[in-house]
């Protein structure tokens, strides 16, 4: 690509400077965590995964959502995604990098991270997640880079990239499926021990990711004067609606199975999340906000009058994104540990240090995204006027 990501106007530099600051703070917080240990987090004996793994799970979904552009564009020849398919791939790159970082900061011994390869263990789902995530990163970097380079030269992309692009489609599904398998295969964690966890993940991913893409598309239209096109946005909105509906349908299924069967261990985590358990319910307000935002957004998106209005579309997408972020990026992981194996409700409270690291990683993601988008849009716009 070119030097374009590092040239820019005042607004861009301020944005990059701001991100750099957040990253620096996050890095300082991480150094502190390296020095003093994960005791600085809100995690403990009972809730042993917290905001890091929750963000990781959520971002895997965002990463996987690139397939919602690649698939219609390459398999169904939906031409309108031509302008933004690379934006999806670049979003995937930023999201996967964030995923990897979230896993690393969660590790007690990050210096031993390569043990995952040195002592490759196929019966561990984490090993497979390591493989699929890194593979997905490579595939997306390759596809994005090759496509953009070809576009820059204004020559057709080389033929060998086609199979790689096709490979990226099942691969995107695999990253979220394997991530679901991390959780769904654990005995005694009943919230996760469900066969529809993978479909649930995919549904929420294909709602959250494209929502974010719509928001980003509207943003670059505003700040970079790069229009994704009405058709593309409308198609993305359709995807968001169907995936969002599927997501809430799946949540409903979980409720039915747990509460109709009336098996306490299946109900407990859901009870904790939505109604509180043993008098404790720190997440209850979040979950209801999530439900209201999600259902509300979907309701309004169903009407053409409202979803055709860009302001409203942005609002609905933001609401849905936040809703799903709360659902998957907070609730799902934490409540898996609540109640604990002794049926005690011990809650998790995030700490400032943890938040700083989390924000740092988000900022890294945003920085990567900004730089990649800038490069992509420069190339794209070079051929239009």
């Amino acid at each position, binding site marked *: *690509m*070119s030097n374009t990501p590092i040239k820019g106007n005042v607004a861009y530099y301020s944005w990059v400077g701001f991100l750099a600051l957040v990253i620096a703070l996050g890095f300082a917080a991480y150094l502190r965590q390296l020095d003093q240990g994960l005791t600085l987090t809100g995690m403990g004996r009972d809730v042993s995964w917290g905001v890091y793994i929750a963000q990781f799970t959520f971002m895997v979904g965002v990463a996987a959502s690139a397939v919602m552009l690649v698939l219609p564009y390459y398999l169904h020849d939906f031409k309108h995604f031509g302008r933004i398919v690379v934006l999806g791939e670049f979003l995937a790159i930023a999201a996967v990098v964030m995923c990897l970082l979230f896993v690393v900061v969660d590790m007690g011994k990050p*210096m031993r991270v*390569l043990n995952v390869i040195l002592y490759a263990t196929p019966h561990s789902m984490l090993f497979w997640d390591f493989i699929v995530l890194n593979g997905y990163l490579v595939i997306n970097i390759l596809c994005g880079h090759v496509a953009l380079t070809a576009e820059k030269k204004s*020559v057709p992309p080389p033929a060998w990239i086609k199979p790689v692009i096709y490979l990226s489609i099942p691969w995107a599904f695999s990253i979220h499926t394997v991530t679901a398998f991390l959780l769904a295969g654990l005995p005694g964690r009943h919230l996760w021990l469900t066969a529809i966890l993978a479909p649930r993940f995919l549904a929420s991913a294909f709602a959250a990711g494209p929502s974010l893409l719509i928001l980003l598309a509207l943003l670059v239209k505003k700040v970079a004067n790069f229009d994704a096109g009405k058709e593309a946005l409308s198609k993305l909105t359709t995807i968001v609606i169907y995936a969002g509906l599927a997501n809430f349908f799946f949540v409903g299924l979980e409720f039915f199975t747990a509460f109709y069967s009336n098996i306490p261990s299946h109900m407990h985590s859901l009870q904790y999340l939505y109604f509180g358990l043993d008098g404790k319910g720190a997440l209850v307000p979040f979950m209801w906000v999530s439900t209201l935002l999600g259902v509300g957004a979907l309701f309004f998106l169903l009407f053409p009058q409202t979803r055709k209005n860009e302001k409203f579309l942005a609002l609905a997408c933001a609401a849905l994104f936040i809703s799903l972020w709360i659902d998957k990026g907070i609730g799902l992981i934490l409540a898996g540990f609540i109640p604990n194996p002794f049926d005690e409700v011990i809650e998790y409270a995030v700490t400032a240090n943890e938040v700083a690291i989390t924000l740092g990683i988000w900022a890294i993601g945003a920085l990567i995204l900004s730089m990649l988008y800038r490069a992509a849009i420069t190339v794209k716009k070079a051929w239009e006027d």
Partner: protein
Amino acid sequence: MKKIITPFVLVVLLGLIAWFGTAGLGLYTLFGVVLPYGAFATFIVGFTFKILSWAKSPVPFRIPTTAGQAKSLTWIKPNELESPSGAPGVLARMFLEVFFFRSLLRNSRASMVKGPRLVYVSDKSLWLAGLVFHWSFLIIFLRHYRIFAEQVPFFVPLLEAVDGFFEIVWYNEIHAVTLPGLYLTDALILVALTFLFLRRVLDTKVRFISLLQDYFPLYLILGIVITGSLMRYNLKVDVIAAKNLVQSLVHFHPDTSIQVGSIFYVHLFFVSTLAFYFPFSKLMHAGGVFMSPTRNLANNSRAKRHINPWNPTIKIRTYAEYEEDYRDKMKAVGLPLEKE
């Protein structure tokens, strides 16, 4: 092919010589004392000599590379890094050039596509590989101060901690391959050298321009890296004995009784060869980069007169001579004249 293979054979031979010289002939004093002293002395003297030989030639004209807007009208933003107007800009430019290879960062690759049409795509691979190689080399060299200096300097444990952050300790049934853990720079330098080598061989442009002497140092440094890594990770040697030997050398009473494993002498011989070879080769770019007039001069020649010590006196065709030749013609069209 000859220029690719000959230096390889040469380096292998050098390794064999050191191995046979020590393990076979027992010439420990030669390989452990005499050659290292000789090589180091050659390096210091040769390096100094080369720098001074450059310094002995003046810089007659101020010709910096102006790769950006020069300082001109006050309201036009000058690019101090690419076209520095004074010492601060020059220092910053040199710093970025020496430590971060800034010029290579803008490298691009041209290709001709049907049309014909030329297209250029940014290519940062040389920059990255070069940076990784040089920085790894520097860090590895600095880490060796644990051997060179009797009291381990403060920066060594610091570098070791960062470089060895990843505990890459791998055990298999045949061999505990890496204990102590793998240094990142050890792996990175190997990757970077391999890339630089492959690039020389596979890129037809670079293969065309490459000389035998471009491959030789690559192989030699690769040899140093490989023997060093073998010593650390596989064919263990007594590092205390090695340090004792080095300390006896730097304290100027060489202990000829010390014998370390042959791999150590192969490593040392490679290093000695490199040190000896350095001042006479392109490797002097390490010193030369500081001396390059196109980069270490400010672009201020219209504001400040640059002096050429050998500015020749030239006889010019003066106006008087000119008027002499053309007086009539000038007069005819009414041009003012000095002498009527």
